[in-house]
């Protein structure tokens, strides 16, 4: 049974580092669910959030060790092993006519999502949440015509005051 794990990979912010990390994951035949990267509280450190699926802890340890071996990688933390908060951002562009617009707004309100762009033919919905919530709104809205979807991939922080770099 494959299980998903959220890894926080702290790396030196250098050219090519994202390629090094994602290339390693694919050539070692690990399964990657999502990957996202961004700046952190330190200007020269990038945090890469990787969701990998693995059969067991041994396989997960392999992923962690192979990642940690990269010269640019400062630290790899299995955030899933801590109490943590996961969030993902999604933007959904949906066809909206005068007949359907009210129903769509209804769904948006139920999910506490936001409408961030409106045109005569469509709306763009923004929602932040866990993966299940995002999957649920996509399911609910799919009765209407979804034009396109952009998702950021999951990011996560542990609860409490201790940062990943000190774990």
């Amino acid at each position, binding site marked *: 049974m494959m299980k998903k794990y959220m890894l926080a990979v702290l*790396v030196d912010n250098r050219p*090519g580092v994202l*390629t*090094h990390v994602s*290339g390693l994951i694919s050539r070692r035949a690990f399964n990657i669910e999502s990957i996202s990267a961004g700046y952190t509280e330190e200007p020269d450190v990038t945090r890469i959030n990787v969701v990998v699926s693995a059969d067991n802890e041994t396989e997960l340890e392999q992923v962690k*060790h192979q990642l*940690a071996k*990269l*010269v640019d990688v*400062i630290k790899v933390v299995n955030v899933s092993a801590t109490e943590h908060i996961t969030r993902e951002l999604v933007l959904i562009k949906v066809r909206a006519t005068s007949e359907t617009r009210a129903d769509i707004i209804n769904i948006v309100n139920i999910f506490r999502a936001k409408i961030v762009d409106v045109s005569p033919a469509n709306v763009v919905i923004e929602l932040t949440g866990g993966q299940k919530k995002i999957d649920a709104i996509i399911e609910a809205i799919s009765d209407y015509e979804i034009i396109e979807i952009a998702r950021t991939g999951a990011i996560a922080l542990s609860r409490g005051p201790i940062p990943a770099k000190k774990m």
Partner: protein
Amino acid sequence: MIMNGARAVLESLKREGVEVVFGYPGGAVLTLYDELYKMKFPHIETKHEQGAVHAADGFARATGKVGVVFATSGPGGTNLVTGIATANMDSIPLVCFTGQVGNPYIGKDSFQEADISGIVTPITKYNYLVKNVDDLPSVIKEAFFIARTGRPGPVLIDIAKDVFAAELDYEYPEDVRRRGYTGDFTGDESQIDDVVAALNDSERPLFFLGGGVTLADVSDDVRAIIRRVGAPVVTTLMGLGCADPDDDALFGMAGMHGSYAANMSIMDCDLLIGLGIRFDDRVTGVVEEFAPKAKIAQFDIDAAEINKNVRVDYPVLGDLRWSIPILKKKLDGSKADYRAGCAEWRRKMTAMNEEKPFSYKKDTGVIMPQNVIEEVDRLSGDDTIIVTDVGQHQMWAAQFYRARRPREFITSGGLGTMGYGLPAAIGAKLGKKEKKVVLITSEGSIMMNCQELSTLADYDIDVKVVVLHNHMLGMVAQWQRLFYNRHYSESEMNGHTDLVKLADAMGVAGCHITEKRDLVPMLSDALARGGAMLVDIEVPPEEEVLPMVPGGKRLDEMVLGVSE
């Protein structure tokens, strides 16, 4: 000091103690070669960039120093790829400098442009693209540090053409500061205590030595540990030379073409102590049934090697330079009589080895390839470096040559690169001029980089080239005999090339040996004479490398027997 980037590269090499560069010039590195010319920096120009990188690799393996390569952009860089992958698989420290097209031309599909740092990312320990001349000193300092420390490996520095000409105020940094790579690889001593405790409880311990023992230069301590414990010892291909060949605890190489006793000892031991070995598929046989009765201890510098292929009960994570002396001290201080404890186990292995040693049919009228290796062993004596190519001859060399010391058996283990041998032998000889260097190769392998025969002649490099010529791609043909109904698909080598004439045309003396009675006198003359020499020896076409563990079989399911 104000200087240009090219000069800064060479000044940095001097500070790193680089004795010689292997390379080939071209458009993007003209400025670099101009400074090399002015500084008279020692440089060996091979005939192909692949030759340069294998030569640097052979130099690194023979000396333990970092091998250095220069190549130009585009094809210069891509010709390095096989050599970099070869070094990477066997953890050999290299720093390869490539020229890149000038900054304004990068990304425009310019003439001789290739994204070499992108291409080599999966096969380098690290790599750089230098676009700013001020970055050069710190990049080079880091590159050598990363290449030689920890688990060694190749590093590539790609430098934009205009960077070589640009000026900088040169200062070479004292040290390297990387948050994710400190170069400190000491570990947790209690892990070594666990191994000692396991050894105290073990009735049938076995030492399994790999290339890491060579890379860490700890074979003296390892030999002392082996003498202290008295347990049987087996090695991987890369571990040949780590144990004393005259120690009767040594049962040779294990794995696909390992000795009967070595493979049986793995199947029967109750504690397997792996030192610097990565349990690659060629030594484990079917991995689920590797060492089924044993607890496994693994000493390794690389955390990612623990539990990668086999389950490990007692990992000792850290540099063998740190862990092996501690293990030795703990064992020396122990009151246990290990030798007596495993005497019976060792007697059993000795009996097995005597029953089924590496063997071949001796009463034939033709020159047997295994006999050639035995004669090379006998005639060349101590202070010899054996270099091999890849295939049957490589396995016979591993089985029948008694490597005396580490760094004296040089072979492409992990990648299995045909064409590696000749250039690697060039590098080994230049690194160890006081040693005799003998290349064991075949007519298939040598043709892959035969152009380097002229490098031998042009630089007057004394390498003896012994060709086991069976008119077959021997290992391919062996598999075709065993598993493909003897369909010799493209494995017969009945071409018109006369290797002695080829050598002669390139300036290397050569001779054919076809008669059995000529082998010893002619081989002995060839090995004794000064200067390079190619000896083309006719051996039978259908000889097998045995024993053999077929793919997907356990180590005790060897195909045995003396080949006809």
